[in-house]
């Protein structure tokens, strides 16, 4: 008995020493003005390296994306590798990839806000920006992949003399409506919490920046009534955007599940795509946080190992959920007994492009499961950077398996085919990556990337109280 008590006493202080509450941003407050200055400095500091990257990425957008796309519009979709029976290739794969990436911005921000997860505070905006720019990159693809992009507006319900409307039975029209809704609502959701920070920036700048922030801050003064309405609006949006987020990727999955292609026609696709989207998106948030922490001034104060740790746990859970749905797809197909589906799924693992399937499993299951359970790895930012990049490689491979590799082996073996991505497709896919990075890089110096008021609010609510000799972290409930 006595020995046990001794053991407990021996272990406890050691644990405490490891978990110093001041490692957490919320328990490591700084004066408000100092923090404002830090964020302003991070926003206005530009190095030579920054400009080189910005120009290089701008050129990448111009040449890789718009150059290749323009050439394709002038000559025809034939410069891409699609061929019968694989009519959708890298364009649709990359489309689903970007829409998936755009998911976690809202997921991290809205769901963690609704559930009052305090660690979200410093990086909600970084995540929301990822949503907006991921959508901007992804929403180009429904246009890029069209055979006749110059008449794309026929897919939009607009009044016209011939009374022709789009076909509301087509998943592509649902897609268009869902993505537009998501883009609009997530942009508003990005903008609302930005208003007080823009006002903060307005009061601390001169010249062109002042003019822009003055316009965007909407005359924010910080009165009690303004805060009350802002909180209410953010709360409404945080709740309302969650179903929108779930619907968007479900609808993207319906592009496939509604079709009668063997291997697509599955009711599991909705949740399967959502879990995959959140997995790839949360991974992308970690990747971005690593880059921000290492390149922007003062960001090592805001983005800490605790954030990598928390997001790493989230990633592990979603990797397991993804594996569950992946397994389920096979289980249900086996139970359904459709020979064509069985054929397709077998060929994924044994066909000419089986390496894509194995890449997917290694990057999405093996790597996260073998590494993310380990606290030391989760708390090592560069390791998390590599792991999350690999997860996104795996998710790209997943979409590649689902689209061209499934289309290539349908019910009639005479019509089987393989598909080779061509330079135009690779160039456009890289071009949208450049577009995403370019927009993010530009925005990082134009708007405060850390929601300062949210961090300050959180720090005010968190205090360390002295109870006897121990310091006890305590949190005050802020919103109701």
């Amino acid at each position, binding site marked *: 008995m006595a020995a046990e008590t001794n053991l407990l006493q021996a272990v406890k202080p050691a644990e405490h020493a490891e978990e110093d509450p001041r490692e957490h941003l919320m328990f490591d407050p700084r004066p408000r003005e100092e923090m404002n200055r830090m964020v302003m400095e991070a926003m206005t500091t530009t190095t030579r390296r920054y400009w080189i990257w910005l120009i290089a990425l701008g050129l990448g957008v111009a040449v890789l994306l718009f150059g290749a796309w323009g050439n394709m519009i002038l000559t*025809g979709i034939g410069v891409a590798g699609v061929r019968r029976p694989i009519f959708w290739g890298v364009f649709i794969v990359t489309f689903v990839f970007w829409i998936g990436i755009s998911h976690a911005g809202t997921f991290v921000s809205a769901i963690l806000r609704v559930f009052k997860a305090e660690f979200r505070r410093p990086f909600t905006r970084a995540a929301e920006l990822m949503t907006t720019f991921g959508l901007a990159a992804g929403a180009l693809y429904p246009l890029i992949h069209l055979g006749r992009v110059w008449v794309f507006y026929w897919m939009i319900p607009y009044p016209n003399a011939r009374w022709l409307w789009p076909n509301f039975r087509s998943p592509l*029209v649902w897609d268009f409506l869902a993505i537009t809704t998501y883009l609009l609502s997530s942009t508003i959701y990005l903008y609302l919490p930005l208003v007080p920070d823009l006002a903060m920036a307005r009061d601390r700048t001169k010249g062109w920046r002042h003019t822009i922030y003055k316009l965007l801050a909407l005359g924010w003064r910080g009165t009690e009534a303004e805060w009350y309405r802002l909180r209410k609006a953010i709360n409404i949006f945080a709740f309302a955007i969650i179903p929108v987020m779930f619907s968007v990727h479900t609808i993207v999955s319906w592009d496939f599940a509604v079709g009668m292609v063997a291997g697509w026609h599955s009711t599991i696709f909705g949740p399967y795509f959502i879990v995959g989207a959140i997995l790839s998106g949360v991974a992308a948030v970690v990747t971005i946080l690593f880059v921000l922490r290492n390149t922007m001034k003062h960001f090592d104060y805001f983005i800490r190992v605790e954030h990598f740790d928390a997001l790493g746990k989230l990633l592990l859970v979603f990797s397991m959920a993804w594996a569950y749905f992946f397994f389920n797809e096979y289980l249900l197909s086996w139970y359904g007994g459709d020979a064509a589906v069985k054929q397709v799924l077998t060929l994924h693992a044994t066909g000419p492009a089986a390496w894509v399937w194995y890449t997917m499993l290694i990057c999405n299951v093996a790597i996260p499961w073998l590494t993310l359970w380990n606290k030391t790895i989760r708390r090592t930012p560069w390791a998390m950077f590599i792991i999350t990049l690999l997860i996104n490689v795996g998710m790209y491979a997943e979409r590649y398996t689902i689209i061209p590799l499934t289309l290539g082996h349908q019910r009639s073996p005479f019509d089987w085919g393989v598909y080779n991505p061509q330079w135009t497709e690779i160039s456009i896919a890289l071009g949208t990556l450049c577009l995403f990075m370019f927009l993010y890089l530009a925005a990082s110096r134009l708007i405060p990337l850390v929601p300062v008021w949210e961090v300050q609010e959180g720090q005010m609510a968190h205090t360390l109280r002295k109870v006897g000799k121990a310091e006890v972290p305590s949190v005050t409930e802020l919103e109701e």
Partner: protein
Amino acid sequence: MAEQKAPQKWGLVVDLDRCTGCNACIAACSMENNIPFVGEDEVAYGRGLYWLYNKREWRGEYPEIKPAFEPVMCQQCGNAPCEPVCPVFASVHSEEEQINLAVYNRCVGTRYCANNCPYHARQFNYFDYELPEPMNSYLNPDVTVRRRGVMEKCTFCVQRIVRGRQKAAAEGREVEDGEIQPACVQACPAGALVFGDVSNPESKASQMARNQRRYQLLEELSTLPRVTYLKGGGRYGG
């Protein structure tokens, strides 16, 4: 207005016992429907445009092998998978002919219909295909020439159906059985293809379709194809 008649259901019967695999149907189809030649490289990559293609399979063990053929064209499904997925109504069902129409001018080129067709009967114009000088004089004025970026497919030579119906109406009579023939049927030297009104039980196509050898492609998908195949390679010839 005249009394509304029940629409004629056009259908095709393919007797595989008679098919010799000569591909005359494919050539006739290309001529009739202004199907462009895409060039050697493109065909090698799998982009040859055929509204009608001949599935070939080898039966038996080497050296005792025999070829078997199965010409596949758009099956003009009664419950067509290509129709609901098109966002702009470029793939629609025609009330009058009971076939699937491809509206080339409306197509924006999402290619969803082609993915969703279990018969892979739909073709895509990857480029603008130019015809060399004397060849452009053969173009059929009744059929739209498609530009790049649109889908196209077999229409049962709808231009011939319309012309036949108009001719009969002008002469004040019903369309006779066998009067309307798509190009492939007309060109088939072995008489393996028979076209007619399958809603009329007396038509030659209906009579032929009532056969023990009858089957339809991927019947289990409930697409209700209008094309009926008669199994080949049995003891009655082939």
